[in-house]
C-alpha cells in the first residue's frame, strides 16, 4: 500500500495535529484543506450533519431549507412528464444512478420495467432508515426535504404513477415534522405536484425492506415477501410499485436539473466514530482514511467543511489518526465496518486507502451498503461487538423463513459464545458451516447481511479468535461499545 508523504494543512500544521483535536492554534483553520468533502453549498446536503451515535439527537447541521431557500439554491423542479421522462431516463442512465439504500440497483432499469408494464402504479420514497448506524437519510429528509419530494414527484410523473407515498417509521418524529411542514409549504405555493401520502410503519429494522413496504401498502403486514415477479412490474394490485431510497430520489431531483453533462457525483456517508454519527457528502475519490479525517473535525466546524483549499495531490493524501476512546489518544483504528450491520469488516490497513466508489469497493470484495463507515478503535473486542450486532439482527428478523427463524439465532448464539470465550474450535467450524447454509436462502436479504458480518469478523479478527479459544476469555479491557445497538428484538 502506498504511503504518501505526510501532508500539511494550509497553515502548515500536520493533519495529525488536526486529528488530535488540537484546537489551540487558529480555530478558523480547522476546516482548511481537508480533503474529500464537497465545497460548501455544492451537492445534495451542502454541509455536514452530526448526530449522537446512540440516539436520534442531532448535534449540529445546516438549517433546513424552506421552499424559498430550496428554490433559491436549486431552482424550480423541472417537469418529468411526457417527453421530459425520456430525457430524465437518459440522464439517469448516463450518470449511472444506482439505488442508495444499499442494493445499488440502477434506477433507470426499475423505471423502464414499470413503463414496459404499462406504467401507472405507486412510487414510494423509502424514508424508513432501519440501519441503526445510518443517519444520512434522516439528514436529507430533515435538511433537504424539498429535494427528496422533488425526486418523488419526478419519479411519479415519469412512470405516470397514480400514487406517491413517503414511507417512514412511526417513531421518526423529526422527519415526520419536516415532511409535514414541507408538504404544507408546497400545497400553499400551489406547486404542480402529485398528491403525496405520508404513511408510517412499525419502528422495526425490517420496516424499510422494500418488499415489506409493498406488502404493507397492499394491506398486509409489514414483513418481507419473496417476490416471484419483480415489484417494478407488478407490485401493488397488479400495478408497478417502485420503492426508492430517499437519497436516490434527491439525486433524481438534482439530475433532472443539471442533466448528465453538468452532473457532479458525490457519496453520502455516515461515519460512526467518537460517539457521533457524522453525515458527510464526499467526492467519490475520497478514501476511507480521508473520510474519517473529515469526520474527526468536531461539530463546531459544521457547515464549513471545505475541500478546495489544497492542491489535488494533497487532498487525496492519507490521513490516519482517529481519536481512540479507550486510550484517550489519537491512534489508528483497528478495523472498519463498511456498509453497516449487514455489511463487512475490514482491517484498517486494508480499508484505509480504499476509495468510496462503488466499483472500487466491489473489486475489493466489500461495499458501502447504505453508506456507512463504522470505526472500531484499537483495544476494543471486535468479536464482542460483532456478537452484539448479530444478536440484535437475529432478533430483528421477520421470522418467516427457516434461515431467519433458526439459522440466525444459532449463528448469533455461537457468536456470543465465541465472544465470551465459551466456544471451542468445533463451534467455530459450526459457525462457518451455518453461515454457508444460510447464505442466499433467506426470504429477503437480511440473513445474508448477518452471514457477511460474521464471516468478515472471523477473518478480520482471526488472531483474536485464536486468543479467545486459547484463553477462554477476552483479554481486552471492557469498553463502552462504540456503535449504536438498539435494545431488544424489534420484530
Amino acid at each position: 500500500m502506498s504511503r504518501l508523504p505526510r501532508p500539511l494543512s494550509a497553515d502548515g500544521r500536520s493533519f495529525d495535529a488536526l486529528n488530535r483535536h488540537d484546537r489551540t492554534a487558529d480555530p478558523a483553520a480547522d476546516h482548511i484543506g481537508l480533503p474529500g468533502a464537497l465545497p460548501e453549498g455544492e451537492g445534495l446536503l451542502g454541509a455536514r450533519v452530526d448526530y449522537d451515535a446512540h440516539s436520534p439527537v442531532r448535534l449540529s447541521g445546516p438549517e433546513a431549507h424552506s421552499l424559498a431557500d430550496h428554490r433559491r439554491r436549486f431552482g424550480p423542479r423541472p417537469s418529468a412528464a411526457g417527453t421530459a421522462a425520456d430525457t430524465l431516463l437518459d440522464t439517469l442512465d448516463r450518470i449511472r444512478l444506482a439505488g442508495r439504500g444499499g442494493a445499488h440497483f440502477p434506477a433507470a432499469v426499475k423505471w423502464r420495467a414499470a413503463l414496459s408494464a404499462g406504467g401507472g402504479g405507486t412510487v414510494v420514497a423509502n424514508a424508513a432508515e432501519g440501519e441503526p448506524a445510518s443517519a444520512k437519510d434522516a439528514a436529507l429528509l430533515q435538511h433537504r426535504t424539498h429535494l427528496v419530494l422533488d425526486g418523488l414527484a419526478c419519479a411519479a410523473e415519469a412512470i405516470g404513477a397514480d400514487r406517491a407515498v413517503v414511507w417512514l417509521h412511526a417513531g421518526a418524529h423529526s422527519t415526520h415534522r419536516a415532511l409535514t411542514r414541507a408538504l404544507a409549504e408546497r400545497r400553499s405555493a400551489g406547486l404542480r405536484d402529485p398528491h403525496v401520502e405520508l404513511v408510517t410503519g412499525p419502528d422495526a429494522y425490517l420496516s424499510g425492506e422494500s418488499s415489506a413496504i409493498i406488502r404493507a401498502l397492499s394491506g398486509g403486514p409489514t414483513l418481507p415477501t419473496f417476490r416471484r415477479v419483480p415489484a417494478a412490474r407488478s407490485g401493488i394490485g397488479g400495478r408497478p410499485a417502485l420503492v426508492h431510497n430517499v437519497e436516490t430520489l434527491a439525486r433524481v431531483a438534482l439530475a433532472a436539473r443539471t442533466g448528465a453533462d453538468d452532473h457532479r457525483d458525490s457519496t453520502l456517508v455516515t461515519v460512526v466514530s467518537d460517539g457521533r454519527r457524522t453525515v458527510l457528502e464526499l467526492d467519490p475519490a475520497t478514501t476511507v482514511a480521508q473520510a474519517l479525517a473529515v469526520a474527526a473535525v468536531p461539530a463546531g466546524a459544521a457547515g464549513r467543511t471545505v475541500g478546495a483549499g489544497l492542491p489535488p495531490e494533497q487532498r487525496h493524501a492519507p490521513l490516519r489518526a482517529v481519536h481512540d476512546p479507550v486510550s484517550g489518544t489519537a491512534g489508528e483504528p483497528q478495523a472498519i465496518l463498511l456498509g453497516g450491520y449487514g455489511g463487512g469488516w475490514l482491517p484498517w490497513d486494508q480499508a484505509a486507502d480504499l476509495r468510496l466508489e462503488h466499483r472500487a469497493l466491489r473489486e475489493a470484495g466489500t461495499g458501502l451498503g447504505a453508506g456507512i463507515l463504522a470505526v472500531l478503535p484499537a483495544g476494543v473486542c471486535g468479536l464482542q461487538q460483532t456478537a452484539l450486532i448479530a444478536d440484535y439482527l437475529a432478533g430483528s428478523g421477520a421470522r418467516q423463513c427457516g434461515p431467519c427463524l433458526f439459522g440466525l439465532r444459532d449463528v448469533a448464539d455461537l457468536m456470543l459464545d465465541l465472544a465470551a470465550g465459551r466456544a471451542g474450535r468445533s463451534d467455530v467450524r459450526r459457525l462457518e458451516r451455518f453461515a454457508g447454509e444460510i447464505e442466499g436462502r433467506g426470504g429477503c436479504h437480511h440473513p445474508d447481511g448477518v452471514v457477511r458480518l460474521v464471516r468478515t469478523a472471523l477473518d478480520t479478527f482471526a488472531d483474536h479468535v485464536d486468543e479467545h479459544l486459547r484463553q477462554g476469555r477476552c483479554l481486552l479491557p471492557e469498553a463502552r461499545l462504540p456503535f449504536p445497538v438498539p435494545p431488544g428484538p424489534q420484530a
Partner: protein
Amino acid sequence: MSARVDGSGPRLRVDPVACDGIGMCAHVAPRLVGVDSWGYPVVDGSPLDRRSARSAAAAVSSCPRRALFLEGPAES
C-alpha cells in the same frame, strides 16, 4: 445434480417465506432437494434436464405449502 448442457431447462426454486420445512420435497426428489441443519430444503437452482424436471415437478406438487416452483421454460 443434473444440469442440462444447453442451460435452457426449468429451474427448481423455493419460496423461503412460504416454506415451513415440512420436508415432503426432500422425500419425493432426494436427488434434487437437500436439507439444511434445520430441516429446510436446499436446491441448487441449476437448469434441469427432462428427467430431473419430471422429478422436480413431483416435488413441486408434493408441497403442502405450495412453496416450491419451477422457473423458466416449461418442459415440452
